[in-house]
């Protein structure tokens, strides 16, 4: 008996492994040494200028090899005029490797610059900077500035939104469903907004090799599935952990919105970091107005609860404070790749929350989602978001 179970286990493992072996043989055949099957076509080298920083008397350029073959950085120019420069750590870039090109140059603030990097085969790659601005130096003062802005944009508007709670509490059940549906509309808008933003960042700043669109899709869906799984667990254990179901839902909404606000913080930090101050003032006002509606989203499911001022404030913090962290990261350590990742995680989180609220409404409305309050709620939510969103 024991022998047979053992041998059947071996068989099971073998049957799982054998296809892999064939796959390895196939790969070795196609790519292995001596294979000339794929020796057709000419691989074109490609580099991407990911970041340009304006330091004292110097322009610093971060380049990444985003092509199929390794490259050598050979020359740097500013506005198509050749400049002596240095490349650190060295000029040889393997696939995906980055280097810092330091170009000594007496640049003028607010003037546009075209930065060119030429590689060994003579191909020149260019990045245009609309207006030169001194790179942000991390300082306690600036960190404090970002914290204040994050508070204005994230925490305070969400808290103001939460003040609608007594109002939502007193209204009829139908109107309550309307407000829950309104939340769905708001979140739906935010989710689409996050996906759009992630796609835009990836299109403008990420090389094609990262396959931006599918990167966004993959991270969004992974985030959605991960949070959905965690959310279900939270709902199941909500009784034992002392949380009521609406509180658990509100908690998830605040986590989702928190991730979203983190993305907003990134955008603000990055805008300040890149020196477009006027733009970021606009961004701040727009986000502040916009985020007030997020407070309603958290308040709505909790409105049938009692004695939860403390919890509510905590959720406001969970939803709002990530804007501060986002601003820090966006301002001090901006990278387009991590921005895309964070925005996509936020989008996944929001879609997950939408499913949960819809479920809640469905249960409350006896499986009928097509009633007036739900349909009008979602519609009004979208429209309100669109109108406040225009301000950004």
């Amino acid at each position, binding site marked *: 008996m024991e022998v047979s179970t053992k041998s059947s286990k071996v068989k099971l493992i073998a049957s799982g492994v054998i296809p892999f072996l064939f796959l390895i043989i196939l790969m070795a055949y196609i790519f292995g040494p001596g294979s000339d099957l794929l020796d057709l076509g000419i691989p074109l080298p490609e580099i991407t200028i990911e970041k340009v920083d304006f330091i004292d*008397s*110097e322009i610093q350029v971060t380049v990444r090899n985003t092509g199929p073959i390794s490259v*050598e*950085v*050979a*020359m*740097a*120019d500013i506005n*198509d*005029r*050749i*400049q*002596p*420069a*240095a*490349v*650190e*750590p*060295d*000029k040889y870039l393997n696939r*995906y*490797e*980055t*280097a*810092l*090109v*330091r170009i*000594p*140059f*007496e640049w003028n603030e607010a003037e546009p610059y075209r930065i060119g990097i*030429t590689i*060994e*085969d*003579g*191909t*020149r790659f260019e990045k245009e900077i609309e207006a030169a601005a001194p790179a942000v130096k991390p300082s306690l003062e600036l960190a404090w500035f970002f914290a204040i802005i994050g508070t204005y944009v994230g925490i305070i508007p969400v808290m103001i939104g939460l003040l609608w709670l007594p109002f939502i509490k007193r209204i009829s059940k139908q109107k309550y469903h309307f407000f829950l549906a309104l939340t769905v509309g708001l979140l739906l808008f935010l989710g689409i907004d996050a996906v759009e933003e992630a796609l835009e960042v990836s299109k403008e700043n990420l090389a094609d090799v990262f396959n931006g669109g599918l990167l966004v899709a993959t*991270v969004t869906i*992974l*985030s959605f*599935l*991960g*949070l959905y*799984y*965690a959310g279900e667990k939270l709902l199941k254990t909500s009784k034992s952990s002392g949380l009521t179901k609406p509180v658990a839902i509100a908690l998830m909404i605040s986590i989702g919105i928190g991730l979203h606000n983190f993305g907003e913080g990134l955008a603000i930090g990055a805008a300040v970091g890149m020196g477009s101050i006027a733009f970021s003032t606009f961004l701040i006002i727009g986000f502040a107005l916009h985020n007030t509606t997020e407070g309603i989203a958290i308040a709505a499911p909790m409105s049938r609860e009692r004695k939860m001022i403390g919890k509510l404030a905590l959720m406001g913090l969970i939803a709002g404070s990530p804007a501060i962290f986002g601003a820090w990261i966006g301002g001090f350590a901006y*990278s387009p*790749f*991590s921005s895309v*990742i964070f925005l996509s*995680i936020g989008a996944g989180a929001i879609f997950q929350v939408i499913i949960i609220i819809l479920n809640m409404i469905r249960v409350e409305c006896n499986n009928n989602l097509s009633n007036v309050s739900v349909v009008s709620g979602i519609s009004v939510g979208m429209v309100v978001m669109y109108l406040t969103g225009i301000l950004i």
Partner: protein
Amino acid sequence: MILSLSILIGLSVVVFFTTFSDAQSESKTFVTHSGAMVTTTGEILDPLYTVSTVEFDPMEYLRDFNYGRVSQLSDGTTLREFTIIAEDDKIMEVSPGIFYNVWTFNGTVPGPTIRATEGDIVRVKFINNGEKEHTMHFHGIHPAGMDGVFEPVGGNGGQFVYEFEAGPVGVHPYHCHVMPLEEHIVHGLYGVFIVDPKEERPPADEMVMVLNGLDTDFDTENNFYAANTVPFYYQHHPIQINTDELIRIYVVNMVEFDPINNFHLHGNLYKYYPTGTDLVPSFYTDMITLSQTERGIMEFEYEFPGKYLFHAHKVEFSEKGWTGIFLVNDSNKKSNQDLDYGS
């Protein structure tokens, strides 16, 4: 579990793609265009050859004149025979670290400077060892069949003999005339043809400067400009000349894509003979403007020793390599070893 796994994967991807390789080496220093010293732990990207490691030596080309294999015909006329081989597969390091497919006459860009006296018979045995068809088209006066336009010479060993009487007096370009013409020219198939007057010009320190451009990324815009192909070469390897000595420059503009080029000399003015066809100068100036294949002869002497720039006053060109320095030695002060005047 799945959540933490996905977060782990996400974070590790973020960290992986933003990691810099942290190899460090000893620091080096370089000088910027404005004279500042910059120190780096990495490598220096500077478009200049600090040591003479060039494949094509602009200093050698500068004063290199080819008079051919000389013999006399039965009527006493001088015959000058040349062999020119075209190739189109050579990869040359045109600027430090930048490799470009040059098409060459006798292995260099520009091709050899061919020099004859007015009335001599010039016989050029042309061998095309390239892949594509090529020809040699001389500017000057010759029969239609010697024009190198309607008789493309096939690649991989095709041959043709160009024969004509040298004339008129002056400085002329020669170049391949196979379509697409622009492509054949910008890849480097050109050179200088000098016809001396029967009564020689006064002795001088003579040199040839071909003003050219390199479009290394094929976007019909030049990435580099130069006098004699290698960008910034004469800036870091000044051309040595002497005070009170006549300098004669045969200058030919072969820049494509840009409608004009120009030549500005510092601290001096020169007599300019357009196309070199007249023995009386047309201008006394420090600035000439040259269109495609426009050329001429410049003559000047320096009174004061020191370093003098010469460059395109279309500053874009000079900042992309078309710039150089004359280092004028005081001929009265020290007994300089005689320079090889190339003739």
